[in-house]
């Protein structure tokens, strides 16, 4: 089936090489941009080219796009890759490499991850708490005063906390010992076989619990910098540990970082996230960010999600907009929690314009400055 495809030329007037090489270059271009293209897709692409009858460039483009893209974000990447492979004769490989290099160069300094921590974590043995009391001291210590070694120690505790999250009752049922739920007819028929057809034993099914969607919206503006590295670590741990978690970062604008944070390697994940978040350590416009969350990602949040906003509430945007969007968010979400590192101070009162507008619409305002406060958050999340 793939044989004729090899001979079938696409847009052959400007290209001398075989389709095979061009397709390989195209898929390489896609992969360089983060799209997953397997051998299966490549083979399907060849088959698709064979079925498209006209040898027009546009037809081939549409066919390849349908086969090679599996995601809305892929479409743009595909257009870029297609242009560079079949376009005005620009060398495809060079460009892809340049782009990649830029991202890597740009990623580290903007991430706000201390460079030494990365090296020491790899070169030296990983620091572990010497005694139970170390952990205990760490629990209440403010994130902003953490040393790099303490960051490494806290990592494991954060990972453990991240496994705790909201659940809800599912419509799926599972066998249960307790009577009073729905009868389990399937098991009763089976059990009756053993008793000569008489349903002597009663069996029951009860609803099971599933993870409730969790949406984490993390402020990465300048004023949050001391806390952002630990809070992002928590966000990453949540994405890695649980299903149905969505992560966003915002300063002046909102960026979805769920896909970037997926994967177990914490440092790589944060690097990837830093590459897409363009406004690290800048200003804050919470209202605008939430407006985008409500509109563009409204359906991802859906009904019944717990939304956690991690921000100090220093807002340079329009407080009225913030209030409106908070109200909307609270109406669509199951529960809205605000995690504010400043709230840890005993005398803290939400006096900034932003917090004054937001607090009436939050279900809960918690501190987010230490492991103990994250523990508190985990407990709140687990509450029904």
């Amino acid at each position, binding site marked *: 089936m793939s044989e004729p495809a090899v001979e079938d030329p696409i847009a052959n007037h400007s290209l001398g090489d075989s389709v095979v090489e061009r397709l390989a270059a195209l898929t390489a271009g896609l992969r360089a941009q983060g799209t*997953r293209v*397997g051998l*299966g*897709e490549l083979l*399907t692409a060849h*088959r*698709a080219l064979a*079925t*498209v*009858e006209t040898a027009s460039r546009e*037809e081939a483009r*549409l*066919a390849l*796009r*349908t*086969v090679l*893209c*599996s*995601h*809305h974000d*892929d*479409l743009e990447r595909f257009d870029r890759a297609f242009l560079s492979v079949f376009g005005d004769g620009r060398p495809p490989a060079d460009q892809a490499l340049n782009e990649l290099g830029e991202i890597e160069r740009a990623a580290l300094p903007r991430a706000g991850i201390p460079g030494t921590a990365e090296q020491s974590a790899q070169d030296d043995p990983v620091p572990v708490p010497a005694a139970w009391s170390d952990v205990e001291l760490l629990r209440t210590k403010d994130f902003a005063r953490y040393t790099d070694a303490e960051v490494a120690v806290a990592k494991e505790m954060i990972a453990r906390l991240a496994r705790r999250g909201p659940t809800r009752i*599912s*419509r*799926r049922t599972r066998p249960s010992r307790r009577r009073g739920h729905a009868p389990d*007819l*399937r098991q*009763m*028929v089976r059990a*009756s*076989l053993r008793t*000569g*057809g*008489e*349903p002597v034993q009663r069996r029951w099914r009860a609803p099971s619990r*599933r993870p409730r*969607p969790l949406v984490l919206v993390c402020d990465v503006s300048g004023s949050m910098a001391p806390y952002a590295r630990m809070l992002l670590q928590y966000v990453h741990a949540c994405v890695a540990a649980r*299903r*149905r978690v969505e992560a966003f970062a915002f300063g002046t604008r909102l960026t979805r970082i*769920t*896909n970037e944070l997926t994967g177990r390697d914490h440092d790589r994940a944060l690097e990837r996230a830093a590459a897409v978040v363009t406004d690290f350590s800048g200003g804050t416009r919470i209202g605008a960010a939430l*407006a985008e969350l*409500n*509109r563009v990602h*409204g*359906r*991802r949040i*859906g009904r019944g999600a717990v939304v956690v906003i991690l921000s100090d509430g220093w807002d340079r945007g329009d407080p009225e907009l913030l209030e*409106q969007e908070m109200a*909307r968010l609270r109406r669509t979400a199951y529960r809205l929690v605000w995690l504010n590192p400043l709230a840890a101070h005993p005398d803290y009162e939400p006096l900034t314009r932003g917090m004054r507008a937001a607090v009436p619409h939050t279900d809960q305002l918690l501190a987010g400055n230490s492991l103990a406060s994250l523990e508190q958050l985990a407990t709140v999340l687990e509450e029904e």
Partner: protein
Amino acid sequence: MTIAEIGSVEAATAALATQGYLADRQLALAVHLAVALDQPLLLEGEAGVGKTEVARALAAATGARLIRLQCHEGIDLHHAVYDWDYPRQLLALRAAEGGVDEGELFARRFLLQRPLLAALESDPAFPVVLLIDEVDRADDEFEAFLLEFLSDFAVTIPELGTVSAERPPIVVLTSNRTRELHDALKRRCLYHWIDYPTAERERAIVHARLPGVPDEIAARVVTAVGKLRDQADLYKLPGVGETLVWAQALLALGDEADLEETLGAALKVHEDMLRVRERKVLEGV
């Protein structure tokens, strides 16, 4: 036209058009490929752009049987593939006065066919279009099962054995993107993103679906909907479905029809309506 005759993009366009579904070139190509390559087609897009309608139109145009599986939260094998008719089994046990063996009890006549099994067991002489609607509402376990189902077109019922399709159905999956589907499932499918139609196409859609609507109403509604979709800060943008309802509303009201007054046909969020009225978006349309 039969399924087998959809051998080109033009044929796919024509087939869908016979049902009043005006597909753009990209969508027609995706449908053509799905038929030609025997691969499932995954359709994503905003609400109301006509994802489900593609499968309906394809089935109706080709005389294929449409089997629809509506996914929902908590859906499992017993909703989607098969279930045993327990009440009848219990009655049969009773009637037999003790001494029924397992084979008799789990016989074919006590099996309830659900959509996916129906698609597998359908007569190979008649093609089937299997619509798996709103797959994003199902959970990960079910998605994993679907992945298996879509690669083998076979299911195993422990008591009876394996049932496989003599002729795999044409499969159309739709997703509203309330969550991201698993990569593996997406990679099994051809993917197409349905966008809002252009004004020109949308007008043609109104005429195709509502033959009684005069052109001035169609043009007016399409312009109005276009203006609403330009308002980036609305919570919920109107889809093609809303356009059709709006056109019907204007037609029913006759001469007194006013876009502002019938705004409820297109916008369903209170704040959105306030915003549109305040900014006089629809003035002069």
